[in-house]
């Protein structure tokens, strides 16, 4: 996937501990220029620490960080944040409360280019005309866009966003995250998001790096990550999934719900996403509906197979399944992992 791209950031074997807590442990990540990537992980997985190390707000105990091919941190080097050309958008926006919008946005720009860059970036984020407002006079969404404009104004090589949407309610989040991703793509900057929200990560990014216990366990395109997770934990973290034991022989794994191609051999675990499961009403089907959760735009139906195993299916809002209905199950897609 790296053909034609240069590396914007390269982190090698970075570790960082706080007292007894290991925040990063052999953290490795390559970020290609121009990409929007997300570091995704549960709380405590070290993602914010990784971001702060790359931005220069913290030093690694071991390992190295390069930005644009220049080493900014290793055993001998530490380039302070003000000389890294990394734009940062903070979770709480961190707008300077005593400066108006224009002076916030122009803060990091040399005087000669200030007027021009303030105008350009405010236009990019759609806040032209609010130059003289003070931060407390803006709505939460506007404050966030000022924070993004301020980070973009000095034309940094990379812009980093720490949980930028966590202050927004769920209804707004999808829309705003799409808008922000669009702004960043228009600006053409490399962008690194940090989030614990998998839908946000999958929907906004070119690449997603999944972190667990201080290291990157998988970095891939969103769809690859979703369908081909490296292990059961990543699979479960990215979305609903059911798992079965199976046995693979000659490029094929046999499960209670059918046979699937695989290049593994022997005992395996098989992951099935609810979206890959189809149900059709049938009196002599192989399964019985146990529970149905109706969400409006879709429904999640849990069925019990003849051998007692459970499987979930995510279907459109119709037909109406009821507990006790007999159904036939067919699975379109499954992924096998080596059993441990």
């Amino acid at each position, binding site marked *: 996937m790296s053909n034609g791209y240069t590396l914007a950031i390269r982190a090698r074997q970075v570790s960082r501990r706080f007292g007894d807590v290991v925040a990063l442990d052999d953290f490795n990540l390559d970020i290609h220029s121009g990409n929007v990537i997300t570091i995704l992980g549960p709380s405590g997985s070290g993602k914010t620490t990784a971001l702060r190390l790359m931005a220069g*707000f913290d030093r690694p105990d071991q390992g190295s960080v390069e930005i644009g091919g220049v080493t900014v941190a290793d055993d001998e080097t530490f380039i302070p944040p003000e000389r890294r050309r990394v734009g940062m958008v903070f979770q709480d926006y961190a707008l300077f409360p005593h400066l108006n919008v224009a002076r916030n946005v122009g803060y990091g720009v040399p005087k000669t280019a200030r007027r021009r860059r303030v105008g350009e970036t405010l236009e990019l984020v759609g806040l032209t005309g609010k130059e003289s407002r003070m931060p407390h006079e803006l709505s939460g969404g506007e404050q966030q866009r000022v924070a993004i404009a301020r980070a973009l104004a000095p034309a940094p090589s990379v812009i980093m966003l720490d949980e930028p949407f966590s202050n927004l309610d769920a209804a707004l989040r999808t829309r705003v995250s799409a808008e922000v991703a669009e702004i960043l793509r228009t600006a053409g900057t490399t962008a690194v998001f940090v989030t614990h929200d998998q839908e946000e990560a999958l929907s906004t990014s070119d690449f997603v790096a999944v972190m667990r216990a201080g290291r990157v366990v998988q970095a891939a395109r969103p769809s690859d990550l979703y369908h081909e997770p490296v292990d059961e934990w990543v699979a479960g973290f990215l979305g609903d999934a059911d798992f079965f034991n199976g046995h693979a022989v000659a490029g094929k794994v046999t499960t209670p719900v059918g046979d699937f191609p695989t290049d593994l051999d022997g005992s395996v675990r098989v992951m099935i996403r609810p979206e890959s499961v189809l149900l059709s009403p049938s009196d002599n089907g192989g399964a019985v509906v146990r529970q149905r959760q109706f969400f409006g735009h879709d429904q999640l139906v849990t069925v019990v197979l003849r051998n007692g195993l459970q499987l979930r299916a995510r279907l459109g809002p119709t037909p109406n399944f009821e507990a006790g209905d007999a159904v036939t199950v067919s699975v379109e897609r499954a992924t096998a992992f080596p059993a441990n």
Partner: protein
Amino acid sequence: MTVVAPPRGTRTERKPSPVRGRAPVALWAMALVAVVPAFAPIAYLVWSVVRAGVTDTGGISAGRLLELFLSTAVLVAAVTITTAVLGTATAWLTTRTDLGGRGLWSTLVTLPLVIPSYVGALAMLGTSGNSGLMTEALRAVGLPGLPVFAGFWAAWGALSLWNFSFVHLLAVPAIRRMDPALEEAARGLGSSRWRTMFTIVLPQLRPALLSGSLLVSLYVLSDFGAVSLLRYETFTRAIYAQFRGRLDVTPALFLSGVLVIVALVLVWAEQRSRGRANLSAAHPTRPPSPVHLRGIPRLTAYGFLSTIVIGALILPLVTLVWWAARGMSLGNTVGSVIPELIRSVSVSGMAAVVTVLAAIPLAILTVRHAGRATRALESITWSAYSLPHLAVGLGFLVLALRFVPALYQTVLLLIIAYVAMFLPQALTSAQIGLRQIGPSIEEASRGLGSGALATLRRITLPLLWPSLLAGGALVFLTVMKELPATLLLRPTGFETLAVRIWSASSELFYTQASVAALVLVAVSAVPLYVLVARDLHD
């Protein structure tokens, strides 16, 4: 109006600051320079006791020491118990009953804090005795006059009246935090009102009362003005007498060292008690229904509150005004204290500016680079603030005489001592301001290309300015009414308002003393009360 330990947030905060850059050496150096003056006199005093233990106590016999210890302990115990009772009663009456004007009463019982204890003692002297206000009033109706208030009972009354408000202030939030459901549950189980009070209510108040009592004990132990004017022998009065009466400072130094060691125990206990009080913080789900007081209990409650307010606030102020007016009729004017006022204002102003400047690096270090070492630094700054200022002042005096004689009897030494003693006031204010700013704003500035110093200048200081100003004002107003250290360290003839009040009172010039006292209360204590009133009543 001073608090002995850092506010809760500071001490219990275990979470390190998210900014993990190593603290620059320059910052540490500046913070250490600010802290050394706080540490040196205390260390010197303690060392002088340790040394005296094997050689020379300056002629202080063990019997004399025991005598002083007992007389001080009796006063501390009596005042502490009295203030605990008074403060709990006023707090309970003004928060949990249906008495009229509870908010007003609550303010009135904290207003005695505008009267420094030596001004209170002056008022006591001015109301009693041969020409006192009460004596004149009693004689006017044909009754015999009052004897001069002096000795144990006078000191006990003065220190109780002008300290119980601290207990009130600590007890009110504790009472508000109590869940009324517990009391109702007890009552529902058949417990009487009194039994509920002693088995349910008071145990919940215990951490706050313990904290308040330790605070008051420390103030009584440290008090110099009231006990010396009212002629009750405690450590501080003995130290000053030793210091004035002899060329050799060894006995005074030894007694100060002992006093500091006793006080350190109280400071330590007070700080621990605060940590414990923290644990009991609960959040009641609904406000309690007020206790209905009817008939005799209601009248008793009003009578009690009125007596306290009259005794601690109205009578002293009326006495001072009466004496001041007497002086005016004899040709005294307010103008006679203007030189003292100017000296007080200028020396306090300088102290406030230097203290704020000293507090800035220390605040940055303790907030942005919190760790074990910075916490230790913070405790040291608090100790000079909490310990008896007479003893700390003597420590400064002797250190100056021995090591930097050029500083002896200079305003500069006085200011250094003020900075060392009141640094925590400016520090706390700056720390609160810094916490509100939050590290991400500074990081945002760093990320946008400003270095550490540019960020301090462009972002942190402009945002911190109001907090620094508030801290500076606090220091200014507190220094104005500081007496014991000023008395020891001032250059000869350098009379501030506080010194004038004290010396005029000791020489029985009540008319002069009262004018100075009213001016001091008006320009220092009242603004100080207003400045911190919002926090006090929160």
